């Protein structure tokens, strides 16, 4: 019975951690949307900012990957 409750908590926790991935998706979308908005206003400056765009995407995405990692740890390592 106790093992079942632990398993239950593991699955619920992994599911909750997956919400973090969804929130990171909002962050990534926001970075890309703002870049596109800025790029359309001033196309001549857009090319020089692609590196910044990718860094921003990477930072936003990394936090989503962290929550994915927490889900993985709950599923396979606990």
């Amino acid at each position, binding site marked *: 019975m106790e093992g079942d409750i632990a398993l239950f908590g593991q699955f619920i926790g992994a599911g909750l951690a997956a919400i973090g991935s969804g929130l990171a998706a909002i962050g990534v979308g926001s970075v890309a949307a703002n870049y596109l908005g800025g790029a359309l206003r001033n196309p001549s400056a857009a090319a020089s900012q692609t*590196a910044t765009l*990718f*860094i921003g*995407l*990477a930072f936003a*995405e*990394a936090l989503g*990957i*962290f929550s*994915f*990692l927490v889900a*993985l740890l709950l*599923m*396979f*390592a606990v």
Partner: protein
Amino acid sequence: MATETVALVEGEEPGGLVFHPFDQFEVKPLFGEIGDPVSWYTITNVTFWMALSVLCVIGLLVLGTRGRAVIPSRMQSAAELVYGFVYKMVEDVTGKEGLKYFPWIMTLFLFILFSNYLGLLPMAFTTTSHIAVTAVLALGVFLGVTILGFVKNGMAFLGLFWMKDAPLFLRPIIAIIEVISYFVRPVSHSIRLAGNLVAGHAMIKVFAGFAAIAALSPLSIVAITAIYGLEVLVAGIQAYVFTILTCIYLKDALHPSH
């Protein structure tokens, strides 16, 4: 660990998952039995694919620069393109002083790029999907950059954490946050690369598992094709991101006062 989960999943719903999506990341010796102990000298699938990606890098650069033609061959163009791309990235981010460390960054970029792309081949093993591999790369960057910062700037390197622009009463708080974020760097640096590849490859295998159900198999083919396209993109972008973050950390070490 993985086998237990497979048994559990198969025990609960027979006919569910045919194989586990994480089986592909299992490290096993290439020669000999499955259960053999893995020592540091054992040739495993990780070391094999790592050696293969190193060979590909050497092949691209050695064969590419052998002719040194004025009108480059296809391979020479590819080698020149990669060289120019990384050179420009280092120059843009770190400035002229950073070019001394260009070979290091070029090595990192090509190794990660080739590991990622070789991992996309069917039946291949993705070495960069293991945090052990990426953590060594990221720790190398972290230690190298920290030592370089202290050698180049002495104690002035600590100015990286002491914001001169901020109001005086805020500076200690910002310093604490900066120190924490500095030490989280190698963690996020390595997990970003490994996590992206694990997520992508596991997703492909999850959709491949759907092919066992006849009604879902067309969906499975379409989904795998789409995700594979995304993964080709992610493999390149993650190599680029790892390299450009290395350049940024290098810039911090060379010019700690911003």
